[in-house]
């Protein structure tokens, strides 16, 4: 079951990389970056998954032998990572808006004043 998650996450990352490598539109490249992020987040959160585990919240009296939690650390990591991903997206979007204003295009093959 969890294997599906892993496969899906690597698939998402691969899809994102594909987007970044092939799509010429900057917005699509940004979407590719987003896909990479989501794939990674999915991977991280799947790592902490324990089949049958409960939420890692202590409440007095509710703990009994044989009960176990899912790993809380990856969830925290995922949250952080999502926040970072959102920042990245915002940053790139800001840059794209400026570039559109300056270069008048979103085509990545035309934004190549720095080369050689």
């Amino acid at each position: 079951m969890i294997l599906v998650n892993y496969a899906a996450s690597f698939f998402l990352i691969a899809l994102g990389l594909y987007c970044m490598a092939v799509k010429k539109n900057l917005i699509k490249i940004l979407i590719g970056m987003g896909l990479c992020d989501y794939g990674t987040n999915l991977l991280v959160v799947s790592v902490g998954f324990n089949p049958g585990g409960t939420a890692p919240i202590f409440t007095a009296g509710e703990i009994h032998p044989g009960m176990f939690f899912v790993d809380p650390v990856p969830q925290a990591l995922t949250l952080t990572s999502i926040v970072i991903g959102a920042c990245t997206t915002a940053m790139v979007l800001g840059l794209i808006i400026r570039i559109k204003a300056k270069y008048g295009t979103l085509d990545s093959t035309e934004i190549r004043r720095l080369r050689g």
Partner: protein
Amino acid sequence: MNMEHYPILAIISLFLGAFLVALFGRLNKVLRNLIVAAAVTIPLCLMIALIAPVMIGGQVIGYWMGNWAPVGPWAIGIGLEVDALSLFFGLVVTIAVFVSGLYSFTYMNRDDSLENYYTLFLMLSGSLLGLVLTGDLFNIFVMIEIMTMTAVALTAFRVDYEGALEGALKYMVVGSIGSTSVLVGIAMLYSQLHTLNMAQIAAALPDHQNLVTVGAFAFLFLGFSTKAFLFPFHPLAADAHAVAPASISLMISGVITKCGVYGIIRLAYILYQNINEPAVSILITGFGAVSCFICVTMAFNQHDFKRLLAFHSISQVGYVITAVGLGTALGLSAGLYHAMNHTLFKGLLFLCAGAVQYATGSLDLGRLGGLAKKMPKTCALFLIGAASISGLPPFNGFFSKWMIYQASFEKGLDTGNFFYIVVCVVCLLSSVLTLASFVKVAQSVFFGQLQPQFENTKEVPLTMRIPMWILAVLCILTGVLPWEVLQKLVGPAAAAALNAAGYIQGMLGSGAAAGAGAQAAFSMEIGFWGPVSWLCLLLIVSCAVCLVAVLGTAEQKSPEERHEMDRRAGRTAAFTRDGFADAGRILKPAEKEGHYRNPVLSGTTLTFTGEKDPKYENFFSGEESEYSQVGGGDLFWGFKTNWRHYFQGMRRWHSGVINDYTRYGIVALAFVLLYACLFL
């Protein structure tokens, strides 16, 4: 105060400074600058204070955030951890931050919304310091992300500068491959070991080698090498360095790349401890050598001062990675030494580029020239930096490069692998190509002829030169006293990196680590180079030469004296309209008409009633000398014409299209993964 609070204070002071600048920076300029000055000075002082216990005492300082001390072997909280290696990089970071901050005050004073600049700058510095001091793998990822984000924002800070946005975008997009790889690597490691603390990972990893951890190694290695801008990510560095403000170029090239290097060292020496496996060593060394060579040749094509420096910084990082990949004590020390030197001299060179930009408003090697007469002090500083990076003795670049050659050659002989010999030759060759590049810069920026449009150029203010002098003096000191530096700073850091057990103990165990034992075994045979005695020798010889010269010219008048006498006797060749052009010092801008007309022969000397004395003009085959500069682009024609196919290919390859760079990154990722799975 207890020593163990120092690291967190250092990091906090930078982040707090960023916060305060954001709050109050708009209100008052002086207050803002004071906050920045305090924020960049405190970490430097704290790091210097840590030298004694950590470098010399061999202590490992562990600090658990929120006092979440480890339970048994399990590290629960986030740890900060300062061993000699971390401190070494911490020192490099704080020095660079300090200098860059100091330089920014004057350099950036023509820009507006500076509170944003300083906020981002301090955040960048804080993240860099956090990255090298932390003991937690996920913290490294977070710091890398903050670092990338702020660095991108700062790269694009001068939005109207040609290409700034583009460089920033490329850095962000292609750099995200690296960030993703780091996070994927961390997740894979976590899935196997269920911890994020590096000491604990290091303790557990050798027993848990499987395909997943190997994959994690590949991902982490690629992630860190993206942050170090290694081949094939070097175009990013070139784009980002070239368009960022010079103080930020210093940070990107001097420190951000070093964080990548730090990551690779931690990864291969402490976490996996697999540097002695030939496959790992060849992988890292190979990446380093290829970056070293390709970037140094790419620098030949450049006509922008900072872009050229940017390619060189990757070339130098290539040296560092090459040396680090060797895995021997000598190699690692060489790498660390060169990493430090690179921060110093490349910082100096970037600041010189910034000074040139500040004074002239241009960085185009084809347009500049002859600035040595206008900016003599900057020129002297540049020459120090250029001599250091080209590895001319007795400057610091020489010693570390020499160690790298020695280390790679010896490694080749020890292992019987010709690959390392090739690496050694490539490194030696890159060194002379580096020299050639800087000859090109010297010729096309500082020497040669001054363009009329830069006639009114002024030397940059002292406040900009002081940071440059700090770096220059450090360049000379680390070059002249190499053995001391090796013993006091580099040696302990290398010993710490080679002593994974000490690291683990220091973090999870008793506190004071067994670093001393490793250090005793840490002896190197490098060869003989005593800069101080060599300088004495030089002094003796030059005294002798001077003595002979003085004796020889005792009866002879100096040219100035002779000119003075001639002037009085009216025997001179040259009176200008505004005065006497003596000994070639003064030369009024010439007018076209009336030169050398009306020659008058008196005695044996010809006098002109024209305006400038042709005697002190440059020889121009008899023509009136005009503006003629051998530009940087044509300077190495003989070399380039033999290599034209290579250079053309390279130019095509660095196409400037984001998609292409992403493709190279993906290919590199696939290669590293495949390599790791096959050979590790």
